[in-house]
């Protein structure tokens, strides 16, 4: 019964979407999608699924959104036997908590330096977008297919509701097709703006408050750490969306970049204070070792250079990130002989695979 039900669900989700002939892309629609959340109020049930470490995580979220108040999401995980979580986004901060234990976290909202329109301009440069009309949940939508112009980037498909501009479904697949993120509204009800005004954040929560990161100039960072964080040679098309952020009680630096669709986050820590992430595999590059850890669509790489430990998290293939490490500079491993032996071994293994 179960496999049939699963197939039926896929058929139904497919039945809900009826494609038509392709049309010229509309960046107007993309811009509407980018700002729809500031204009439209709604409540919805949303299915979210991601593959993290080859294990699927699926949840059903009850979403309540009001531009005048914020967004409240209640997640009911369907995989892994986890407890429910509530996430509350308001203008100045976000809460995440377990509604039964009343415990969780609060962190301040990031302020991006870059407008959605600017990021969409980057997207147009880095991706090609085609659009076709379709239907979803009984509503008229446009299905936008976003394909990268360069290797190692993900491909995305979004269904934008023509009437409200909201994204009703989105899907993102890694370059090698192995990793996938998926989210879709299963039910959708528009609401009047202000409908959540009487909604209050519960008063009895025990939240650990995360401090606001401080922005810092390169000069300030150099004086704090005694050395300048090395410039990381990013892939084509990425531009910063935040300033340098001094975080974790001033012990690390972080900065976010975007190519219009995906986000890349770099963090720098003084080498003495950092160690390679557990559960990662080490890859020996000509310059030295790089540690790689996959998490679904996202890859994390870590390496050391010029007295710093650098971590990159991005929705890019490991090859692209390893190339970033190569271009930036990698510190050789301590024991040159061990490194040479490992490197030879890995080269031989690669050759025999080819």
């Amino acid at each position, binding site marked *: *019964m179960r496999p049939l*039900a699963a197939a*039926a669900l896929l058929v139904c989700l497919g039945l809900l979407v009826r494609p038509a002939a392709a049309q010229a892309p509309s960046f107007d629609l993309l811009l509407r999608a980018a700002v729809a959340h500031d204009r439209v109020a709604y409540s919805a049930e949303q299915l979210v699924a991601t593959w993290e470490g080859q294990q699927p995580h699926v949840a059903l979220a*009850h979403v309540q959104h009001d531009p005048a108040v914020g967004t409240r999401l209640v997640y009911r995980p369907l995989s892994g036997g986890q407890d429910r979580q509530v996430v509350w986004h308001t203008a100045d901060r976000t809460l995440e908590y377990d509604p039964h234990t009343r*415990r969780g976290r609060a962190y301040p909202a990031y302020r991006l330096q870059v407008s959605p329109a600017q990021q969409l301009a980057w997207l147009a440069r880095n991706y090609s977008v085609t659009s076709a009309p379709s239907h979803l949940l009984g509503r008229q939508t446009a299905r936008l297919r976003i394909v990268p112009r360069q290797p190692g980037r993900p491909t995305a498909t979004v269904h934008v509701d023509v009437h409200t501009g909201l994204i009703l479904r989105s899907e993102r697949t890694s370059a090698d097709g192995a990793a996938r993120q998926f989210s879709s509204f299963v039910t959708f009800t528009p609401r009047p703006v202000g409908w959540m005004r009487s909604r209050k954040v519960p008063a009895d929560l025990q939240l650990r408050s995360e401090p606001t990161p401080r922005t810092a100039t390169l000069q300030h960072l150099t004086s704090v750490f005694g050395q300048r964080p090395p410039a990381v040679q990013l892939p084509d098309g990425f531009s910063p969306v935040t300033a340098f952020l001094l975080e974790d009680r001033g012990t690390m630096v972080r900065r976010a970049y975007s190519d219009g669709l995906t986000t890349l986050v770099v963090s720098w820590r003084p080498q003495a204070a950092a160690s390679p992430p557990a559960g990662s595999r080490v890859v020996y590059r000509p310059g030295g070792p790089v540690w790689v850890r996959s998490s679904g669509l996202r890859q994390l790489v870590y390496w050391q250079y010029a007295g710093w430990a650098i971590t990159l998290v991005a929705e890019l293939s490991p090859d692209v990130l390893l190339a970033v490490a190569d271009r930036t500079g990698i510190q050789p491993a301590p024991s040159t002989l061990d490194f040479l032996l490992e490197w030879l071994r890995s080269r031989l293994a690669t050759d025999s695979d080819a």
Partner: protein
Amino acid sequence: MEAEAGALASQGAGTEDAQAEFSRLVEAHWRSAYRFAYRLTGNPEEAADLVQEAAEEAFRAFSRFRPGTRFDRWWLRILYNSFVDRTRRQRRQSYVPLDDLSGDMRVTASWADPEAALEQQLDGPVQRALDALPPEFRAVVVLVDLEGLSYEDAARVLRCPPGTVRSRLHRGRLALREWLRGYVDALRRGELG
């Protein structure tokens, strides 16, 4: 939409008739489910989530429901079980032991007219007092004293003997009597005079 419901139905998610019947029963009894959930959880958001979850559980188990029997009692039992599962995972103990009838919880009625007090501001103090009861005692008091169920019906919802209902009810009431002492006294004075 019909195609979708039909496709799901034919694959064992329930016949169309079963779905329609389930919807009808949910619509008929959702208010009593909400009231019970509200008194158990003490806040509207959690109560709504609990009712939603109980609807999902009930649908999964709907083939075991015998048509013609009381759906509301059956659904309340599922709701109570969901609630118990949640509170088992609760790491923070928030109840006052029933034997500790200290003064913290006492709520005094300071107005002259207990009837007005009854109508206007009773919900808050009573709910706070209920919140302090351990869940199994709270459930009994809610079902019998707020929802008006008989001992037998409450016993069916809570899956325990009617004798247990009576003893839990009694102990729960004694605790509430202390915490709501001001109101109880005001009422008795009204009765007597």
